[in-house]
């Protein structure tokens, strides 16, 4: 585990305690790029959450007469799609779907993966071998291929997307959690806790989890952007969210043929995917630096 370097100006006051998380917050507050990306992310998340209240039109109500309106058209700020549906509304609602489909699997993987990884790492022996070799089977496939294969087998729809993406991310989290657990388990402070008579749960709770959750969380956050891209990708291929629901990947697919008629509007969902996944990447990078976890 890395030893925190003291940020200058903090902690020099004699007796001033400086908790780990306060140090992390202090570091983040100094990191411009992360702050900008974080604000952007907040904006995306907020607009997705508030879509039902802030979107100007029904995202599924089309109009034959207003197909593929330009950006800036009256009452359609971001134009309309190939069925004449308001793009701004669809992007807001689509963000809900894409974020849900992107974040949920990582969250599920974070919880299940940590439980599995910590158990395997702490138990060692045959349990460890069984769990880790099973994970290796999944890990051997490229993420995209695995996601497509599982989704293909399960069929389209949001629940199946969530399941297949969770299966993609669980083995990755398990690996990180397991190796962090094995590393921390061998440190002397864990032996010291055992020597004082602490049981497995007390050691897990006070010594292991406290020291491995940080790195695992940072790792999980690096996977969110990939998960968003995979979720959008599955929809794009018709294996994810089904029409007419608005979802960025699906929108990209249906607008694909219109690119010669109107180049700007079809690019918007792609831009949304790009900006959101970039923002997630930058924030997780910043988080990793602030927590001083070496990749």
């Amino acid at each position, binding site marked *: *585990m890395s*030893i*925190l370097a*003291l940020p200058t100006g903090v*902690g020099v006051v*004699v*007796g001033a*305690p*400086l*908790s*780990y998380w306060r140090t992390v917050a202090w570091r983040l507050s100094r990191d411009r790029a992360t702050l900008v990306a974080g604000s952007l992310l907040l904006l995306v998340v907020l607009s997705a959450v508030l879509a039902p209240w802030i979107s100007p039109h029904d995202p599924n109500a089309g109009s034959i007469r207003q197909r593929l309106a330009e950006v800036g058209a009256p009452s359609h700020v971001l134009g309309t799609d190939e069925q004449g549906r308001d793009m701004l509304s669809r992007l807001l609602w689509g963000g809900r779907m894409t974020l849900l489909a992107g974040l949920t699997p990582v969250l599920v993987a974070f919880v299940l993966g940590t439980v599995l990884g910590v158990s395997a790492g702490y138990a060692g022996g045959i349990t460890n*071998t069984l769990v880790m070799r099973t994970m290796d089977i999944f890990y051997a496939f490229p993420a995209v291929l695995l996601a497509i294969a599982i989704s293909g087998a399960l069929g389209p729809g949001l629940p199946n997307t969530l399941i297949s993406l969770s299966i993609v991310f669980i083995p990755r989290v398990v690996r990180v959690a397991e190796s962090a657990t094995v590393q921390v388990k061998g*440190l*002397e*402070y864990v*032996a*010291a*806790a*055992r*020597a*004082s*008579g*602490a*049981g497995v749960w*007390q050691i897990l709770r*006070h*010594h292991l989890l*406290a*020291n491995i959750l940080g790195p695992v969380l940072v790792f999980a956050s690096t996977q969110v952007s990939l998960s968003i891209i995979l979720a959008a990708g599955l929809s794009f291929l018709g294996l994810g969210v089904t029409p007419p629901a608005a979802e960025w990947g699906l929108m990209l697919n249906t607008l694909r043929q219109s690119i010669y008629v109107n180049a700007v509007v079809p690019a918007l969902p792609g831009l949304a995917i790009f900006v959101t996944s970039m923002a997630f990447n930058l924030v997780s990078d910043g988080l990793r630096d602030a927590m001083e976890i070496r990749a």
Partner: protein
Amino acid sequence: MSVALLEARGLRKHFPLRGGVLQRTRAWVRAVDEVAFQVRAGETVGIVGESGCGKSTLARLLLRLVEPDAGHVWFDGEDVLRALPSRMKRLRRDMQLVFQDPHASLNPRLTIEDAVAFSLLVHGVRRAEAREKARMLLGRVGLDPRLYGRRYPHELSGGQRQRVNIARALVLDPKLLLLDEPVSSLDKSVQAQVLNLLQELKAERALTYVFISHDLNVIEYVSDRVLVMYLGRVVESGTADALAESPKHPYTQALYASAPSMDPDRRMERPPIAGDPPNPINPPSGCRFRTRCAFAMPKCAEAAPAPVAVAAGHDVACYLYDEVRT
């Protein structure tokens, strides 16, 4: 003489070295082999030996942090290795260990006050009371709890961390303290301070020490009796004075000769040990020191020599002294 507070007999630990796809055992690290000794209440037993000779492993075996492959450990008349979990938890209060590495032995996420109080919480003491006792002990080891109590380990120096480790080991009021190279990573001046603190604490709390070090000067300074270890085996044991005045085993002789001594008569009287210590993976057959020993005989390769008493309380495991017995 009172009964031994701690007694070990035939302790053995061999670590498997695994490799290959199937994780088959490729070789064994013979970290500790047939170690036997006694520690009487109130004394300080020093264990000295080169790096990698199994000192830390021995300490962990005595505390049952690592399960031995064979042997027995008795503490206060109780069979430690047979103790059931609840009994073991009770026993752990009485025997504590100060760890070797002051950087790895404190949880970076706990304030030092909480690190010390944790052991008490484990034993069901209420939080406020545990904190209070932890603060008191931090004060006793020389760390003002008002200044340091709420600090994290990374804010402390090596010497300060080692004081925290001592406080943590003492907070359960143990009878026996195992000290695994408690001062090896510290500067000379800090070493002296910590050693003096340990001597004070011992007198104050009627403690018994098992003091591990590779530094003969430190061992001579603190110990009543000394065990000399070589590649997992005890080669000689006796009072600190007896070993200093007439070391018997060729390894002990070389060890005392090569240590920078305060006594000019003893300095460089004997040749220092030649060569590097052999690997504990596949150590030499028979006497493990024979590959570096000036007196090696054919029978040294056949079987490990059993300890022989050359004087009362002075045992040597070497064939040179076999005639004493017969």
